[in-house]
């Protein structure tokens, strides 16, 4: 295949970025989500493992208060809206739209991080009280870490959209950032059920 | 400059690390240094009573304040020798609490050593001759860890037991209160 005169495929006409599964970054993000999803799943499994080994649940503690957690679930679900709009704006190369909806998303983010602090207070147990306390603190802590990091990512991306320099693949970043935001929101639902209802009914 | 810093940091780690992690399996001989004998300050003794005085602390410093393994052994012995019976995990009960800042008979390692060896009036038995002095020093180090007197990376962590409250390595360092004047320094302790 080192025949100089052999015909070749000229790729210079191809686009220089692409959305969704065509983009390598999408696969990278997917990989991250697979890893973190596994961590969440294993922590939930740990929760039920410990629960199955204990006669009383939530051991000596009171179940966590529902108010803040439920409120946060609502906020997070709502935040999917600006998130979706940011994604759409990104895929339309609509810079003002991206700026707007990222800012709205960040506001939602601030809201649910603030409420999250209240959630920890409402767990009614310390991490070092018993194994139940340890696992719910870990579960809530893990999700909080993802919330905060995702919020920070979004912030950086948002700032970049004001300062520049911008190039086409930044719109792909917006799209993937939204995908990750979805991940953080959707994974919360099972975790919410486990933390708040695993200690009650189920 | 940079290599110097590296060297300093490294040797600091070396010293800290090595002392913290050392496991000494050979029981050091008891204090053989000639020192005046201290009288037992308590009629009580574990097991059958022994006559005669007990030894003084042969040093002011605790040999084990920096040794995590020895402190951990001290914690085990604190349970085995039923110190818990009166001091219940340092919280106090029949005996005074050990995790607070109050030190009736002094917070210095040598003073704690003497307290254990001689015993004290009002019920603290005299363990001198019933526990090898090396183990007494281990218990001394552990007792000091109860009120946060030891480094955090040396003090023991939680045990696999039921115990409410923070483990020794999570406790705040309390500044020992000076002894109350009505408690004369027991002879031997300095």
């Amino acid at each position, binding site marked *: 295949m080192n025949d100089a005169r052999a015909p070749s495929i000229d790729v210079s006409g191809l686009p220089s970025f692409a959305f969704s599964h065509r983009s390598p970054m999408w696969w990278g993000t997917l990989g991250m989500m697979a890893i973190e999803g596994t961590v969440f799943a294993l922590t939930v499994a740990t929760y039920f493992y410990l629960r199955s080994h204990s006669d009383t649940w939530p051991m000596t503690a009171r179940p966590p208060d529902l108010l803040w957690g439920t409120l946060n679930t609502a906020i997070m679900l709502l935040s999917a809206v600006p998130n979706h709009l940011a994604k759409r704006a990104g895929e339309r190369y609509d810079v003002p739209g991206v700026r707007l909806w990222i800012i709205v998303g960040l506001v939602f983010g601030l809201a649910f991080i603030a409420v999250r602090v209240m959630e920890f207070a409402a767990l009614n147990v310390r991490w070092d009280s018993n194994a139940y306390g340890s696992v719910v603190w870990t579960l809530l802590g893990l999700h909080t870490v993802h919330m905060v990091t995702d919020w920070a990512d979004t912030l950086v991306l948002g700032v970049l959209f004001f300062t520049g320099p911008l190039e086409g693949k930044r719109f792909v970043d917006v799209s993937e950032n939204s995908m990750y935001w979805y991940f953080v929101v959707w994974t919360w639902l099972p975790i919410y059920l486990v933390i708040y209802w695993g200690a009650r009914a189920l | 400059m940079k290599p110097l810093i590296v060297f300093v940091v490294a040797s600091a780690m070396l010293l800290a690390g090595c002392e913290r992690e050392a496991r000494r399996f050979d029981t050091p001989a008891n204090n053989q240094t000639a020192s005046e004998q201290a009288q037992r300050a308590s009629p009580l003794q574990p*097991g059958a009573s022994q006559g005669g005085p007990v030894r003084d602390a042969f040093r002011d410093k605790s040999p084990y304040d920096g040794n995590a393994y020895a402190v951990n052994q001290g914690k085990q012995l604190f349970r*085995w020798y039923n110190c818990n019976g009166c001091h219940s995990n340092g919280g106090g009960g029949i005996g005074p609490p050990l995790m607070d800042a109050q030190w009736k008979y002094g917070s210095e390692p040598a003073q704690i050593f003497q307290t254990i060896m001689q015993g004290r009036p009002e019920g603290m038995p005299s363990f001198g001759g019933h526990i090898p002095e090396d183990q007494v020093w281990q218990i001394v180090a552990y007792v000091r860890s109860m009120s946060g007197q030891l480094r955090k990376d040396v003090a023991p962590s939680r045990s696999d037991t039921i115990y409410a409250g923070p483990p020794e390595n999570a406790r705040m360092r309390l500044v020992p209160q000076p002894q109350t004047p009505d408690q004369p320094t027991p002879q031997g302790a300095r």
Partner: protein
Amino acid sequence: MVPPVFGLCLRLVLLAVLALLLASLSDYALAATPIPQAVHDALDAMGPQASHIASLWNVFLAACAAVFLAILAVLLYVLWRTPRADGGDVPDLSSLREAEPGPQRHVTRAVVVSVLALFALVVASVFTDRALARLSLADAVNIEVTAHQWWWTAKYVNGGPSDSFTTANEIHVPVGRPVVVNLHADDVIHSLWVPSLAGKKDLIPGRSTVMQFRADHPGIYRGQCAEFCGYQHALMGLLVIAEPPAQFETWVQGQRQSATEPTDAKALRGKAVFESSSCAMCHAIQGSLASAQHAPDLTHVASRQTLAAGTLPNTPQDLSAWISNPQLHKPGTNMPATPLSKDDLEAIVAYLGGLK
């Protein structure tokens, strides 16, 4: 990439030097096994459990050896028959064009055979498992074994509370009677393994496990801890002494008694020293002031074969050597060296030597 090796080499050099010094200077006193006659071999089965497993072993060994040799034979045949070639030779690409029925048939056959063989092995394994579970437990001897770092407590619980008694590091069982051992761990995970009598079972803190076996021949069977449990995992032995039922009963009767009162002055002094020194802080001797539970119960220590969980033979010399410096024989053990005058030491040895 260099530093770790460098650091390691340095450490190892220091280590080697140190080791040579130690080896030359120190009187390292780990004795040869005190009970050379004790059986400890998984294939030398002395009871139904071990022999079930031993026969399963033979099945597996035969099957696996056959497969292994078959594959080896094919490989050698290939090496012997196939023509040689060189990197320069043009590759044979015919397989890209037409199928290879011959090799396909062989591979398929080999796979089918392997599947069948594996299935047979699974069945054999499951049946052995059932056989192990079906040991008759009628009129069993019940023992509570608790593992500590690094020794064993054995409590015989047949009959009422008054009949139960505690011993350490050595259990006697009657030949032909099933034994049910309830296993507990006092500190970390241990595992009880008596190869000639049964497979091993873990002792896990917070859980309790059971081990059932029967000894069909009188003899001494060596067991030991099989799960890494710290510094002296290597020297955590347990003796199982299988003896005829009558003999076993007399042993039980003896163990139920509290310690024999010493008669001669030396032993009496030994008892006094034992009770008033650090010995009594950890050990128990029924019928004396010593009642602590943090070390082996010494009520009938003289009737045992070994000291320190199979570390030393139970002779007066070894006993006094052990008491005067346990760390020399079993580095890391929880027993400290007790400073005793020569007379006191001899007295204690005399006293303990009398506790048949």
